């Protein structure tokens, strides 16, 4: 066990898989010599060679197109999209191709691809370096969608994603890369080393896709979150002084509905938190599912606390961010209803 930041844990996952499986390779903008703008591939080209870890031309659609072809050959490519905001040029290859190939070929071909993309705000990146686009991909059958909230999960989930025979879109909340973040930009930053889930084994292990984690047990209200918002939800639970059960979804598709429904049936109240814009965000699906599964147990309306339906602003970043106060207010509304 070593204390690793999220960046280091992701780096370790890729390193382990490059080591174990000659079919694994990684490419993307600046991932080769430089090691990625967020340093996730630092040192990997030097260690594994240019053939396994290399720079790509700036063309997200081309990267995905090539990855689909590599997957058909039998490789397991990992593609880094430099920011999730730049995944749109790749949507056609992801949605029309990667996600559909197994089905349309009746299982003859598949696309065992992992697409990594840093997402979310909190770094003053403005509207094109802050987006959370997971809902678009969670709507796409044939894809799996993952978002970790800590180094241990990040490594274990990324290894699962790489080994998965279906295409996985793996979103990395960039605000968590170098330390946990509970939504208080004004408080001193903690390093990951002080966090229990930064204890990461050096070697191979997996965290299975499709399993949520109860990160804070409670009985009064269920809070559903993923990525950065897990930490915000925990802070909000404290702030609200609520006996909240906080669930870290980890995988959005396939979703661990059992864990969610089990919790809400127990608490009777549910708050959903995400950073993405509200309308048609992933919270809508969660709300619909919880309502369908737990209707007769619900004692209060399900609350959504989300990013506003606006682009991510620059100056007013913290007014936009659904921080602990807003989540705590949602928890209070759920408890008081």
């Amino acid at each position, binding site marked *: 066990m070593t204390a690793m930041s999220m960046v280091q844990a992701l780096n370790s996952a890729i390193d382990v898989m490059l080591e174990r499986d000659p079919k694994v*390779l990684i490419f993307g903008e600046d991932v080769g010599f430089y090691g990625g703008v967020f340093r996730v591939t630092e040192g990997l080209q030097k260690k594994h060679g240019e053939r396994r870890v290399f720079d790509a*031309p700036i063309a997200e659609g081309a990267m995905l*197109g090539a990855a689909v072809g*590599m997957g058909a*050959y039998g*490789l397991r490519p990992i593609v880094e999209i430099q920011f999730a905001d730049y995944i749109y040029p790749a949507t056609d290859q992801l949605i029309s191709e990667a996600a559909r190939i197994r089905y*349309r070929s009746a299982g003859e071909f598949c696309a065992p691809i992992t697409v990594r993309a840093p997402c979310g705000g909190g770094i003053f990146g403005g509207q094109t370096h802050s987006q959370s686009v997971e809902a678009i991909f969670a709507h796409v*059958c044939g894809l799996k969608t993952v978002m970790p909230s800590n180094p241990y999960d990040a490594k274990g989930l990324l290894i699962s994603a790489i080994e998965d*025979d*279906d295409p996985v879109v793996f979103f990395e909340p960039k605000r968590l890369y170098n330390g946990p973040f509970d939504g208080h930009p004004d408080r001193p930053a903690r390093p990951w080393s002080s966090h229990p889930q930064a204890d990461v084994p050096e070697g191979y292990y997996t965290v299975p896709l499709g399993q949520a984690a109860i990160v804070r047990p409670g009985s009064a209200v269920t809070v559903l979150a993923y990525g950065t918002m897990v930490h915000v939800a925990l802070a909000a639970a404290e702030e609200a002084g609520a006996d909240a059960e906080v669930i870290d979804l980890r995988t959005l598709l396939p979703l661990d509905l059992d864990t969610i429904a089990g919790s809400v049936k127990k608490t009777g109240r549910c708050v959903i938190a995400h950073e993405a814009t509200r309308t048609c965000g992933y919270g809508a699906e969660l709300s619909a599912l919880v309502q369908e599964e737990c209707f007769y147990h619900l004692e209060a309306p399900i609350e959504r606390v989300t990013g506003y339906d606006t682009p991510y602003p620059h100056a007013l970043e913290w007014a936009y961010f659904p921080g602990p106060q807003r989540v705590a207010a949602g928890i209070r509304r759920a408890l008081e209803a």
Partner: protein
Amino acid sequence: MNDIPVAKSSAQPSTPEPLRLHIPPHRSIPGQRPDFSYFRLPPAGGFARPAIDVPSVETHPLATALIRVLDDEGGQDSRAVGEWDPHLAPETLRQGLRAMMLTRAYDARMYRAQRAGRTSFYMTSTGEEAVSVAQAMALKPDDMLFATYRQQGLLIARGYPILDLMCQVYSNAHDPLKGRQLPVLYSSRAYSYYTLSGNLGTQLPQAVGWAMASAYAGDTRIAAGWIGEGATAEADFHHALTFAAVYRAPVVLNVVNNQWAISSHQEVAGGEEATFAARAIGFGLACLRVDGNDFLAVYAATQWAAERARANHGATLIEHFTYRAGSHSTSDDPNRYRPADEAKTWPLGDPVERLKHHLIHLGEWSEERHAAQEKELTQSVRDTDREAQTYGTLGEGPHFGIETLFEDVYKEMPWNLRRQLREAEGQP
């Protein structure tokens, strides 16, 4: 805001001439006489064949060429001439002729099957058979093919069972794709034929990626990809050329310029100002432009590009200049956007006829054998169709079971699909 009046006069009095928007004119008018006056036919044998390892720049003059081997302007007296003559054995030529004729017979049959209501949709490759058949023969059987919907000849030339093609078109209980795909969107891993997409262009960067993977693995198999001239406007075409150039991928990239993209002439895709082969120049890729109705020329160009790729000299872009003789698909009526007899007057003729004449000229074929073979193939296709129909048709079934709707979305069925399958099966 955005309130600039249209036709506002400029702030700069020095330039009086107003700007004009150029819209490529639609020159083929139904009811009018087909006009190919814009088209200059270069002689057969007129272009040198560079060594396969030349720097790509030496191939760039060929972007405006038209590589032709069959010297058959007159029709019957059809010789193979020039450096591009691949010197194929008569048996190989007869094999090619047969595959082209089989493709045509198959197309004719399935087109009628759709008209007769046995399926929803069909697309013929009539007039373009040389492209797919000669290319399949010039490549190795395990080279990986990323085709469009108009290269059924690739599969047929590789010996893929006509029955399986038909069952796919009928979406019946023997459909290798379990009734999931639109007719003609075949897939066959066993025949190294990649699953077809309904989305134009997407397969081209995939071909490059597959080729990169083959090179990554130190394999010797190359990839080949096809795209229509219309679809070259899509991003995927640019992506394919970029990646092919940057990583020197062992791939043969083919633009099939059949003059039409549904109702749009190739000029709408940018063919008015430059050839499609010329797109390679800006990337430093090799390029060839070939008479796509000349079996020998297509074969030779493909062989050249395949050898070049296999010897690690990188990718080649081949433009196949041909003509879509039929409708775009069973969904359109070409007589609404072009003269009915345009196909017949197409200056590059018909690929089947041209190879037939060449074989006859060689003394290796005759009108009688040709007629007999045509009859035989028509009969065999008809017989196969009868068998295919015993496995069902789109309208009548039988089809694969409801569970196949939910399988293969993922390797393992997640809970939401299991639940939906139960609902679809009428279970609680």
